[in-house]
Every structure is written in C-alpha cells, then in structure tokens.
C-alpha cells in the first residue's frame, strides 16, 4: 500500500500530545524489550531509537485496543490481529495509566463520538445545532444516529 513517507515524517516532527522514553517490544516472536522514544501525534504513535531524529515506525491508533497488562505494562493490539501485541513497559504504574488513557482517547473515532455526543446534548439544551455556524451540519461524518455511541 502506497503512502507518502514524507507526510508521515513531517507529522512525526510536530509537537506531540505525549512523548516519553519507554521500553517497547514488537509482537514478533523472540522480540526483546528495547528503549524507544515513543511519541503520540494526533492518531499516530511514532517510535524512535533514542538517539535518532527519524522514527523507526508508526502505528495508526484506530481500530485498536489498549490493554493493561502486568504492572507498569500496557499493550496495543489491532482488532484484525488481537493476539499480536505491541508491549510497552513504563517506569511507574502511574505513567502506565496516563499512557493508557491518552492512547484510548487518541483515535479519530473516539473524538468523533464525543463530538456527536456534545452536538446532541447542546441541541437538546439550546434547541440550536452548534455546527450550523461552521456550515458543516450536513457533513456525513458528524451525523447523529449513524454511529454507535
């Protein structure tokens, strides 16, 4: 599948929602924990070797599950391959929980559901559609009732 690496690289250089050095292990058998700089930018998780400017890889955080594993550890798995887990070992349990929360909210789909919820609530409270002023009321992506809340 083609994509522009330049666009992704550019994104990886943007200010991050969250970044930290974390021990990471790929799902491949025999993989070991390695220290990586992990950086969350919009709905992408980039990971770098700690002394390099360009990321080794990127994960799109959609259709995925963020799982709490043992102490200080969380994992990311994708719905299509639930047994393949990317593992992350944090320094503290607190850091682990912070990352879990941040990653669960990092998906476009999660934000969209929140937006639809707010739109609906504001409409109920005020009688007005808050998206009207932006001219996007009819955009399919923001419609109520088309997605499971």
């Amino acid at each position, binding site marked *: *599948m*083609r*994509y*522009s*690496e*330049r*666009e*992704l*690289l*550019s*994104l*990886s250089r*943007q*200010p991050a*929602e*969250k970044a930290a050095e974390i021990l990471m292990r790929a799902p491949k058998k025999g993989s070991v924990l390695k220290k990586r700089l992990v950086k969350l930018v*919009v*709905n992408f998780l980039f990971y770098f070797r700690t002394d390099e400017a*360009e*990321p*080794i*890889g*990127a*994960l*799109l*955080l*959609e*259709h*995925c599950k963020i799982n709490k594993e043992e102490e200080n550890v969380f994992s990311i798995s*994708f*719905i*299509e391959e639930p047994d*393949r887990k990317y593992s992350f070992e944090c320094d503290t349990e607190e850091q682990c929980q912070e990352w879990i*929360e*941040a990653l*669960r*909210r990092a998906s*476009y*789909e*999660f*934000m*969209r559901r*929140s*937006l639809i*919820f*707010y*739109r609906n*609530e*504001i409409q109920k*409270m005020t009688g007005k559609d*808050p998206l009207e002023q*932006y*001219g*996007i009321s009819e*955009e*399919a*992506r923001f419609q109520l009732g*088309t*997605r499971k*809340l």
Partner: protein
Amino acid sequence: MKLHETSVLGYSRAAAPPDRQGRLYKKSERSSAYQRRWCELRGNLLFYWERQGDREPLGLILLEGCTVELQESATEPFTFEISYPQGPPGHRAYKMAAEDQASMEGWVRALSTASFDYLRALLMELEGQYRASGALGTTPLEERAARGGLAGAQAGIEGHQPWWSAGTGKWGQSICQIFTL
C-alpha cells in the same frame, strides 16, 4: 520508517460506512495521466483502490496539515489539489479530478474538514458551549462512564482541563482557515 500496515488495513475495512466515498481521478506522478480510483474517506485518511470492492487499497493520503484547493482549469475541469504548504519543499501535492461540479464541491468540503486537528478544535469549541449552557459538574464523558454508557474503559475521568486541549494549540487558526473556500 515503517507504517504498520495491520493498523491501517483494519481501519480501511471498518464496518461503519466511510465519511465519503466515490470515484475520483488521481493524477499519476509519473505519467501525468489521470487514473480512475475508488476513494473512501475515513477520519483523516483518504484511502484509494483501483476498483470498488477490491480488498487491499492501492494507497492512502494523510490529511493532516494539508490544504485543499479548487483548481480553475479549462483543460482539466472539476479538479482540486491536496497540498502541504507547511511541509518541507519537495512535498508531493495530489491533483484530483471529480466527475462533476457537485461531486468536486462535496469532496473538497469533506477533505478540508477531515483533519484530526480540525476535529479537536471543534471538540474544544463544543465542550466550551456545553459547559456554558449550564451543564454543571461532571463532563458528559464522566456521566456516561458513571452510567456505564460509553463502551468499556474508554471513558477516562477528566481533570479540570479538557484532555484534547493538551495539543498543538494551532486549533484557533484551523477553524478560521478552513472556510475560505
């Protein structure tokens, strides 16, 4: 850099309908010819296939930090361009053509409002309105979590600052820029 394909393929095959779908013509980088593609917009990603119904997408276009502009061209009607003005020089721009005026306008509108940053800006705005409208105390996410409404553990408890405000801060500009179509 490796973009893990599993993560992307799963999203491209999601059961929920895409935000927009249809036929577009994409100008090839190499040959400059327009090639017919089946396109589906999901979130901040535009996927394209050779044909509708093909399993694996040919490619994807990331819609962050891009501008979408109509092209006024007599020789290439209904065309628009996705470009990355803030990117380093040499960034590729994507020239696309729709089948008619209505389709072109629909796509331009949809693609212009597709970024995560834009969604985040909207959310901040709506969250502010929600609080201002007299909703007190807990945020809707907390209420839903308490009622067990939101799926599983996704409803974290928010602090005083909305979680999405810990972002780039460019949001203020995003909303204003978008509608100078």
